[in-house]
């Protein structure tokens, strides 16, 4: 176990594909913050943990699907995006008036609740794909081409979506730097 901790994602992913649960658990520990954060920013905190769990389960059952091309994190984010889309479609079928964002999480009552709610509300006004492109490139630091692979979209489309989404967010949130406040 101690040896595994220092291994690269790709080595751990190969071990997980052979059914080594311990290797997969290190991958979960390593990436849960980003996967949950991505899903949280995409669809509200209420469903993020359930979708993240589903994402990791899919990554486990289809571990052999990671061929080593590209980064493991990107592969994981692609599963997360597809899981989110499938869930959003299901929810839209059940609730036709649904806007794509879940109910605010209980955790929003604590800490920086107000700031989180404002950000969540602004993100919720963006189209799903614009939101995903902005979160991947601006928040999680993926390149445009990585985001294009994750979202399965042409590079030009992702660039357009990031630019449009960012502009819209700046309009909604204002351009004040209150992060240190």
């Amino acid at each position, binding site marked *: 176990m101690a040896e595994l901790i220092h291994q690269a994602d790709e080595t751990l992913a190969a071990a997980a594909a052979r059914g080594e649960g311990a290797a997969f658990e290190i991958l979960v520990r390593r990436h849960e913050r980003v996967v*949950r954060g991505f899903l949280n920013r995409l669809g509200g905190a209420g469903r993020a943990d359930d979708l993240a769990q589903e994402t990791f389960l899919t990554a*486990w*059952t289809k571990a052999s699907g990671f061929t080593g091309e590209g980064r493991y994190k990107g592969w994981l984010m692609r599963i997360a995006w597809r899981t989110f889309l499938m869930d959003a479609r299901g929810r839209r079928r059940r609730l036709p008036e649904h806007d794509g964002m879940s109910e605010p999480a209980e955790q929003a009552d604590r800490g920086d609740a107000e700031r989180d709610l404002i950000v969540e509300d602004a993100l919720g006004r963006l189209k799903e794909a614009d939101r995903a492109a902005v979160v991947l490139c601006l928040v999680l630091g993926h390149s445009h081409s990585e985001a294009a692979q994750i979202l399965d979209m042409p590079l030009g489309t992702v660039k357009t979506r990031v*630019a449009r989404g*960012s*502009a819209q967010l*700046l309009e909604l949130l204002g351009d004040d730097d*209150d*992060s240190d406040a």
Partner: protein
Amino acid sequence: MTPTPDQLARLARRLALPERGPDEAFVARVRLARSAANLAREAAHSRREQLVIEIGGGGALLLAAHQLGQIGEQAAGLLAPLATGVGGLALAGLVAAAMLSTLAGEREGLA
């Protein structure tokens, strides 16, 4: 309006995910879900195996029944000419003789 790099950097800071260490509770949650999924897969696998065995058993029974039916037909084919060839009275005599010999055998057994 195209956002400037400074504006984008400020926006990224506002949207940033909070820094924190690994959430062990979530890791445990995924571990449990994985165990449950593994168990469900194993159960489905053994259900499939059981179904294959049951279908195989059913097939063997059908084959046995078919063969028994064929043997019964052959036996009937042998006995039918005998029954028609022997007259009704002779047949009753044969049955009576068989009964008497059975009774005699039982008496010997008791003695």
